[in-house]
């Protein structure tokens, strides 16, 4: 509903983007799990200025996550094994969403489940809540019925989750892809055929780090997800591949620290970007990235995002 209203009233600002009917002031969103439920960063950022806030991944019931240590810094990046700790979808709606509704910002609920039915039920509950503008489906979660292999690792499982969520809501559905696969374009095409309105990528790359003195893994979970500047080239390459394989919008994520990084993704063809680990290093990173993109547009006399997105020149490459 609100999306429709916005479509009419939004003055097409230089930075505005339209992702499957979801009109954003600018292409800069926060990445799930790195911005809490928004309130954690309210002292440092004007939340009204964000393109969208993607909240921490939500499950049907609260999840307590993995034992500590959960994080470890690595070369130009970090590993995390938070284990999808979250308050659960009902507490999110009751306790976190009212805060976010005070702001003029699009809220995207990131969801996950251990079974396809859990994805469906979380979607059903969120669709009825006021103030959720889109659903981002994290398919990196292990499928308990399939021996814990991530839904996102196989085209058929990824498509099945997408189809279920698609059938349950009229909100735009963004499917978030894992990079821990042989061919990410195959998964992207599968979720596109299953009805995804957009895809976002990448989630973290599975990694590991060892304490040589104690001869133990640094993380209690042994492995964790790598994020930050270290993953950016891989993320960019995957965005490039996916942009050429699907017709739906692609949201670029991975190691974006500055406006220049964000511009690399946009030029490569991402319709929007998400900022993750950068928030930890610089709590107002998103604000600077928005300003930096605008400066670039002015400097290069680019009137609207459409003229920038996918403007990569590869002739002669």
């Amino acid at each position: 509903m609100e999306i429709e209203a916005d479509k009419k009233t939004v003055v097409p600002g230089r930075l505005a983007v339209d992702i499957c009917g979801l009109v954003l002031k600018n292409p800069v969103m926060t990445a799930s799990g790195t911005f809490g439920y928004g309130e954690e960063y309210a002292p440092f950022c004007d939340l009204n200025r964000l393109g969208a806030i993607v909240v921490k991944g939500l499950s049907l019931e609260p999840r307590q996550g993995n034992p500590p240590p959960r994080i470890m810094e690595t070369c130009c990046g970090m590993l995390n094994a938070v284990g999808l700790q979250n308050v659960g979808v009902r507490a999110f709606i009751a306790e976190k969403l009212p805060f976010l509704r005070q702001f003029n910002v699009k809220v995207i609920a990131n969801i996950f489940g251990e079974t396809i039915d859990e994805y469906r039920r979380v979607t059903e509950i969120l669709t009825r809540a006021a103030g959720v503008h889109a659903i981002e489906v994290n398919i990196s979660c292990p499928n308990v019925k399939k021996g814990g292999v991530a839904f996102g690792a196989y085209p058929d499982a990824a498509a099945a989750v997408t189809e279920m969520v698609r059938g349950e809501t009229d909100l735009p559905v963004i499917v978030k892809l894992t990079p821990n696969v042989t061919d990410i374009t195959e998964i992207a095409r599968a979720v596109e055929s299953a009805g995804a309105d957009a895809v976002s990528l990448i989630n973290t790359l599975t990694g590991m780090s060892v304490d040589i003195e104690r001869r133990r893994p640094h993380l209690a979970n042994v492995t964790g997800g790598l994020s930050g500047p270290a993953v950016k080239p891989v993320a960019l390459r995957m965005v490039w591949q996916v942009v050429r394989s699907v017709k739906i919008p692609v949201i670029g994520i991975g190691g974006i620290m500055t406006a220049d990084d964000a511009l690399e993704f946009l030029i490569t063809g991402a319709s929007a970007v998400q900022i993750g680990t950068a928030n930890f290093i610089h709590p107002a990173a998103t604000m600077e990235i928005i300003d930096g993109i605008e400066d670039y547009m002015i400097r290069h006399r680019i009137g609207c995002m459409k003229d920038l997105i996918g403007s990569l020149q590869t002739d002669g490459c």
Partner: protein
Amino acid sequence: MAEKPSVAIGQVMENRSVAPGHFLLTIQLPLSFATPIPGQFVMIRDPERGEPLLPRPISVYDFQREEGHAILNLLCRVVGRGTSLFSRLNRGSTLTVLGPLGRGFTIDPDVRQVLLVAGGVGAAPLAFLLQEGSLLKPDSGKRKVTAYLGAGTSELLTGLDRFQGFCDLRAATDDGSCGYCGPVTELLAIDLGGYDAKSTLILACGPAAMIRSLDLLLRDTRIRCQVSLEERMACGVGACQGCVVAIKEGEGRIGYRMVCKDGPVFDIGEILWNPSVDG
């Protein structure tokens, strides 16, 4: 109530070595920086460097407002790459300072005797508590403060000067070069019977081993005790859920709390030391 945190650009006014591997950073901040509560911490990072990537959490050791600016003091120990680089910062270099963060110590009005128990640089937040004044403010009546400071050797009893003359002092060193020879918790164990359990509050900060011994020591007493815990952090503001400690949630259930937001100060009785063994 804690004031709102912010991100400030600080300028190093002085960086002084206070003992081998220990340094005192004096940072000038804008006046807009909120006044920290004792036990709160800041996240600091060198903006000139691409790595280490993540900011590092350091407790507030001292905070003063002067004309036109605020002065923040941090007492640090070199343990790895980040702290090693901080130890080499020159006067005039800049640092981004995020804070003040977390929940500090809380002292109930009925407390008559406060025992500050510190190991090494764990003295930092306790020294700030003592200096900041609320512990001994007029309405606290005849409140007594005794500090138990422990370190490897006498020269590592950093921050000693901030306690001397402000409270009763008991020192312990592993090599006996100052005060009691042995762990500070052993010294406390000797004295403990002399304190009235009902009106005594222990506030502690130090290495995990010290906090664990303290937990064992206090298990059979009813003395209240708050400890400042450490865990690896990324955001410092409760967004990443990376910095959790296991706590007892009743009915044998385990819960996780964030050190940066729910702590760093916790009641010692809440903490579950080894979830797989104790839980």
